[in-house]
């Protein structure tokens, strides 16, 4: 099976214009025989119907559509139909990066609108078109901070999502950058301003803090930012955009760079494979940021239009001196985020955040009442994710929940022995009261 719209007759005519007898001849003119490959050892092609059947079979091997109380970086939020409808339009999905601006005003204006909404949400001045995901956006933020501060020592909260931390470590490993980790308080799960203060010195380029942090705890960003600024370090925040409907904005606590994972805005979970990283900065850093940026301009007739801009930062122009090697990014996922944000609007995003927090608190309070469950950080302020220690058998709990099609909390012990017996719950707006009650009930009986 193939998608080739050329038949034998066409092929003959084409070969004859070229002046060869066969495609084989065309190839042999260019490729020495001894370099040629043998027949590919792959299964035979499939008809559309058989292909669907094969992938239905694969699909059937998953236990899917679970009621999800698991987060840790990827969250089960509701995706409005509008997002799928728009993002699925082939004019968006089958276009390339908008090199020809005049023929790409759809994509370009959408990116401009996306950038605008990210700026609104974070309060910062300039957002790029997207990075691959939250993890790489943190890594790029670190590089940006090093570039800007001209200091190669970066403090990072150890409560940064461990996947992100791993990526930052990979990205920086060959670049003579020193990562200094600071630990969170054992009691609160939050960073302690004094601890940060004790690590600050003039050679620190930036302080990177995630809030809500990996444990779900909201940090006192104001205090941390002020502490970072005492030594003129940049303050880099890693934020869950859903939380920005209600939590203090990066701008409000004077962050220089805000990054994060956008999957929560209009993208399904897909094994964590439908992601985009957002990256926003203060005006001063505008010309230093990585990735594509869209700007407004006018056409010959003075009509408003949009183009890729600040391009001299980029690899296709500056090559090894570019601010990043990124080329293809996560445009369509960021576009889903764009449609999602517009679909909710300011008031909807606020309600979204409020609903998340309300449901998470409802679940937290219900679980707290159960025998055998104790909050790991009892007095901390969390957003939509929290941790309980339990004396119960975690494997058994997971099984009991799965039997009822519930993907229960994450066993933090699997990440870090320090957190043995700790379960991390994520509760989004998508979880109904009924589902939460059922979870609580099963936990109770387990």
């Amino acid at each position, binding site marked *: *099976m193939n*998608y*080739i719209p050329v038949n034998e007759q*066409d092929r003959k*005519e084409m070969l004859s214009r070229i002046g*060869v007898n066969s*495609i084989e001849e065309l190839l042999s003119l260019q490729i020495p025989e001894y*370099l040629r*490959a043998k027949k590919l050892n*792959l299964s035979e092609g499939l008809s559309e119907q058989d292909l669907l059947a094969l*992938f239905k079979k694969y*699909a059937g091997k998953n*236990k899917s*559509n*679970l009621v999800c109380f698991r987060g840790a970086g990827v969250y089960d939020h509701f995706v*409005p139909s509008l997002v799928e409808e728009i993002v699925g339009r*082939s004019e968006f*999905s089958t276009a390339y*990066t908008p090199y020809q601006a*005049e023929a790409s*005003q*759809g994509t370009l204006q959408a990116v401009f609108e996306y950038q605008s909404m990210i700026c*609104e949400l974070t*309060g910062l*001045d*300039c957002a790029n078109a*997207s990075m*691959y995901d939250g993890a*790489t956006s943190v890594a790029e933020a670190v590089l940006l901070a090093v570039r800007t501060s001209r200091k190669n020592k970066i403090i990072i909260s150890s409560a940064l999502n461990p996947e992100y931390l*791993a*990526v930052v470590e990979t990205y920086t490993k*060959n670049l003579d950058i020193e990562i200094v980790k600071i630990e969170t308080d054992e009691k609160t799960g939050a960073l302690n301003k004094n601890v940060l203060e004790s690590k600050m010195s003039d050679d620190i380029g930036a302080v990177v803090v995630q809030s809500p942090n990996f444990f779900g705890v909201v940090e006192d960003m104001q205090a941390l930012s002020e502490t970072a600024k005492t030594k003129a370090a940049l303050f880099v925040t890693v934020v869950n955009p859903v939380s920005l409907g209600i939590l203090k*904005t990066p701008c*409000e606590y004077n962050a220089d760079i805000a990054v994060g994972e956008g999957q929560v805005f209009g993208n399904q979970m*897909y*094994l964590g*494979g439908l992601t985009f990283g957002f990256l926003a900065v203060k005006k001063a850093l*505008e010309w230093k940021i990585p990735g594509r940026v869209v700007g407004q*301009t006018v*056409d010959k007739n003075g009509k408003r*239009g*949009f*183009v890729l801009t600040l391009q001299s930062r*980029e690899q296709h122009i500056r090559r*090894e001196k570019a601010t990043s*090697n*990124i*080329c*293809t990014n*996560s*445009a369509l996922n960021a576009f889903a985020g764009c449609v999602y944000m517009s679909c909710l609007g*300011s008031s*909807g995003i606020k309600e*979204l955040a409020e*609903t998340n927090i*309300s449901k998470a608190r*409802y679940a937290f309070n219900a679980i707290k009442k159960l025998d055998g469950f104790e909050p790991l950080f009892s007095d901390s*302020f969390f957003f939509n994710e929290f941790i309980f220690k339990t004396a119960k058998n975690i494997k058994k709990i997971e099984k009991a929940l799965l039997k009822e099609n519930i*993907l229960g909390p994450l066993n933090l012990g699997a990440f870090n022995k320090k957190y043995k017996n700790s379960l991390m719950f994520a509760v989004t707006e998508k979880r109904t*009261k009924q589902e939460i009650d059922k979870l609580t009930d099963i936990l109770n009986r387990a």
Partner: protein
Amino acid sequence: MNKLLNEIKSNRNENRIVKCDVPYDISIDDKYKRQKNHNIPNLSESTLLRHFTNLSRRNYSLSTTFYPLGSCTMKYNPLVNEKIAKFEEFSSIHPYQPEDTIQGTLEVMYELERGLCEVSGMDYFTLQPAAGAHGEYTGLLIIAEYFKNKKEKRKKIIVPDSAHGTNPASAALAGFEIISLKSDENGIVSPENLKEILNKDVACMMLTVPNTLGVFEKKISEISEILHKNGSLLYYDGANLNAVMGIVKPADIGFDVMHINLHKTFSTPHGGGGPGAGPVGVKAFLKDFLPIPVIIKENDKFKVSSGGKKKSIGKMKAFFGNFPVLLKACAYIKSLGGAGLKEASEQAVLNANYVLSSLKDKVSIPAGNVCMHEFVLSSKGHLGEGVKTLDVAKRLLDYGYYAPTIYFPLIVEEAMMIEPTETESKQVLDEFIDVLSKIIEESKINPEVLRNAPVNTYVSRLNEVEAARKPKLHW
């Protein structure tokens, strides 16, 4: 009709999406609380549908027009793959689900890995990289780790001057210094030139085969030998793999590491700028350096393995990679099968040569009269007074075509890089050839028309200089 979102006024009263069925419980200490409201308009679904649907109509796209964008392999993106990617059994999966609940997902990734190995000749693949550049970066980190492990200090990478910008940029990011290698007018690397600049500092050379001029690197074996003898490795930028599926396997011809752009050769749509996927393949001796986690098959069960990989470069991206892209690519391989993939490459080569043959008398073709899946022409000396390749590109938009890649590779003046792909018909190519020929004529008779182009697009030529001079980056 030409409104930005924030200029639309269709204020809805209520939110139809979010509903709270537990008591509202939102008291927050002021120190955590957002003070300023953001200014994202609250618009109705109907308004937004219209807004974005109309925006979509201002895009040229593969689904509406021929898109001969060289180096980008804008081939047809089969609809059935999109349909498969929407299966809820895949879309609803959390990355930390227990292995035994995601056997289907893991099998898809495993099958894709096997397929890519077969096409490329490589022994192992990681599916984690999110795009071509990310793949390059991954591959170069693997190479760096390999030498670190061997305790060799090799800090340099050779990149031909015809290479894509991401090659040097990725090399820099991976901590290497770049040695630029001058290629000949065909973009071909000469073994002699290579030898001259080679030394023990060189970790690897990056090559694209066929190169960015669409020329197959005939001396690849010699080049490979020179490099390997020097202890250096050979990196394959897979952006042009669409030329050689079933025809040449990169691993067979001397490459050690490579990435593949699934959003090019394996037909996943480009989404206006991503997401793509840039799986990286390596020969067996580099296996241990691959990013974690890896997917393994044991007793017909698929497992995610992260541990025991001390030598791994670590993680390139959170979780597993751009799964929906991987899924579509896997479906593509399964639907075409081995024979279909080879046919695709063969037809891609035929289509490119057909266009080349038809245009060769009207422009210069610096790399000669045959090509692989794409070719580069130079319009220099063939256009009317003061008309540039840029103008030809803009004029093509007027005729309803997306423009070819222009001014790349950098070594060809007034370059225009045409890659028709295998999924275009002879009729489409014939018409395109006619139009391009007509435009070249037009440039001589009426150069103004080209300089003022486009006129049939939603906006006329945009002022890019002004955009960069006074950046306006949000509303």
